[in-house]
């Protein structure tokens, strides 16, 4: 096999591999990515029920109700919106009323959300970045006791 044809085989197999990877990536990006919204953005952007999304906001004070077994319901709010969330499972360690939370699941109807995961947070000052930014934009950002929360998110 000559040097030329060898190079041809090499280049064509590399291109085939890249094409395959590009195809897989495009396919996966269409089907598997999840957008992040806060309650007011869901209203503003008119997100349709049945959409899978990440919902982030603050857990409304006094809204956490523990039901049968592991079922729990709570409300997630931000500046002007509020969404009622139902969830079945263990809540992460630092789930607290009045604190930030991010949940992933399906929007069921207007203001109704069924979560299949509530994201774990790593410490009391950690907040997912997208949530922190949304809250900052809406002026709901509260600084922790000792300085800016984002200054020591470990």
């Amino acid at each position, binding site marked *: 096999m000559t040097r030329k044809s060898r190079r041809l085989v090499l280049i064509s197999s590399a291109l085939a*591999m890249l094409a395959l*990877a590009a195809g897989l990536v495009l396919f996966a990006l269409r089907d598997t990515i999840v957008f992040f919204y806060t309650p007011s953005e869901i209203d503003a952007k008119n997100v349709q029920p049945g959409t899978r999304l990440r919902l982030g906001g603050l857990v409304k004070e006094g809204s956490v109700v523990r039901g049968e077994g592991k079922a729990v319901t709570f409300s997630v709010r931000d500046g002007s919106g509020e969404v009622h969330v139902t969830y079945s499972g263990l809540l992460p360690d630092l789930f607290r009323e009045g604190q930030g939370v991010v949940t992933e699941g399906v929007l069921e109807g207007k203001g109704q959300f069924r979560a299949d995961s509530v994201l774990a947070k790593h410490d009391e000052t950690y907040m997912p970045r997208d949530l922190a930014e949304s809250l900052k934009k809406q002026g709901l950002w509260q600084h922790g006791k000792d300085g800016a929360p984002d200054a*020591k998110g470990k």
Partner: protein
Amino acid sequence: MIVETGHFALILALALSAVLAVVPLWGVLSRDATLMRSAPSMAIMQFFMVAVAYAALTWAYVESDFSLVNVFENSHSLKPLIYKISGVWGNHEGSMLLWVLILVLFGALVALAAKNMPDDLAATVLSVQSWVSGAFILFILLTSNPFARIGMPPIEGRDLNPILQDPGLAIHPPMLYLGYVGYSMTFSFAAAALILGRIDAVWARYVRPWALLAWAFLTLGIAMGSYWAYYTLGWGGFWFWDPVENASLMPWLAGTALLHCTAVMEKRDALKIWTIFLAILAFSLSLLGTFLVRSGVLTSVHTFASDPQRGVFILGILVFFIGGSLTLFALRAPMLKQGGIFAPVSREGALVLNNLLLTTACATVFVGTLYPLALEAFNGAKISVGPPFFNYTFVPLFIPIFFAMPIGQLLAWKRGDLLGAAQRLTVVAVAGVVAALIFFAMQGGPALSAAMAGLAIFVILGAFVDIVSRIRAGSSAGAMMSRLWGMPRSAWGTAIAHAGVGVTLLGLAAIGWGVEKIAAMKAGESVDVGHFNVTLDNVVTRPGPNYRETVAQMTIRTGGAVVAKLEPSRRFFNSRRMTTSQAGLLNVSLGQIHIVISDQETEGPLDTRLYWKPFVSLIWLGALIMALGGGLSLTDRRMRLGIAQRARRRDNAAKPVAAG
């Protein structure tokens, strides 16, 4: 005083870096042997300087010198000694110092081996390495100085983040850094080859040990990190496709490709340009990982105090080294001479396929990690790319690798016999299918798990086919034994590392057979998990050195007999007002029972998450076996070119004396 000495030593190390980065390189350009030979001693001196700085910081931690901002913010006088020592790298500043320490350590090791290398190669490699270490020392001194003092020293520190107070901290970061930073060495060699315009099989021999060392440590570091996350974050998972995990996976993929590529270069003098490119790529991805973790672009469990200034500085380092090396690559690579040719079906061809698959898989991880960041920067849309993305992209690209691994090992260099290789693998392939059927019969569950487990068996057994057939070529039992002993260690290393991949795959396949239960338990109640029965005996509270813990005392039974007692707990650290979860783990053969408890509602039932994960230990055991294979290859004679030469020289030197 000791702290100031450390600070001063670090500044001296920077000055030395500047000299080392320029003088030997100047010597290479002006062909001045004296200037070239100054490199090794400077590299060793540089290591001592950074070691002094590092020791000084460690001393401050051990002595709880809270007049240092860094110690005050990350330590506590009551903290156990092991966390005082390992706490040095449990924060941004200290971990950067560890990073630099390892950088100059590798430089010093090359300097020690420099006697056996051509002067110009050693000088150039050490110079380039010094550019890297100088940049990072400058970064530490300007933006993240661990030696900064507080005017009014407090009496007590703020303590180390409780999540980090774990034996994992003593192992995971040093291993990972040895891997990450190890790729700086292959990078320096690649840059030196481009600068000198010379690259050949001998160059590959010098580079291979470093590629192997970095790879073995990175493998261990990633596995340790994964196990740590598994038992401490309390989610029962071991890999989350978290951007920070991906940041370590990408250099590993590129590094694995590099490792295989240097084999081709050493044996067949082919794929030169590609090898150089991979060496640059592996280190670039290490730097990218550092940038992602340190700059605050991502938030994760690894994010240290983020500061835009640091992010910009690291971005500068990133752009300088990646841009610089790629420019050098573009200018000089076409000048490198092409090596030997080979047929597509051959050992080289198989290794090219391996490289293609690994780098493509690496590219998909790259896209999945950076696409959300890029999208947000362009149009502000926030998306999350989670496990499903990687299941659709990464996994399909990796499956062919498992099939190809045993086949590639059986192909001859230059021109291979695919049919012959397939025939030699028949027995192993049948064994894999039988194993899949047995797994399906015994464990049931998803057919995919059984199929994957069968594939894993195929990979494990297939790894040894070549060795076994080479031994069996011996005519008598004695000849077989001598063949067994005569087998180069690198052949064993390859086989063992490949088998390790199969072992990890078996552990991954077994995920499908796992059982997960969530229960609200009261004292005296019990729950069935898999074929085990877990009883909550009691919930007690007790003090620890710097925390209080709530412990669930549980008894595990199977078929009525007590297997063990487990005590999953939650620890409350008062100094940071933070709770961590300590999982209860029990090894049962190769599987694990994993129990995590939640905060207890006052007098209410205890929310408990219980898992039975058969074969889960194999995931990390496989990585350990891979690294072991790497280590075994490292001890091969051919890797110790320098040592062999030195021994010969000593013999020659001794002869005249004996004669006289």
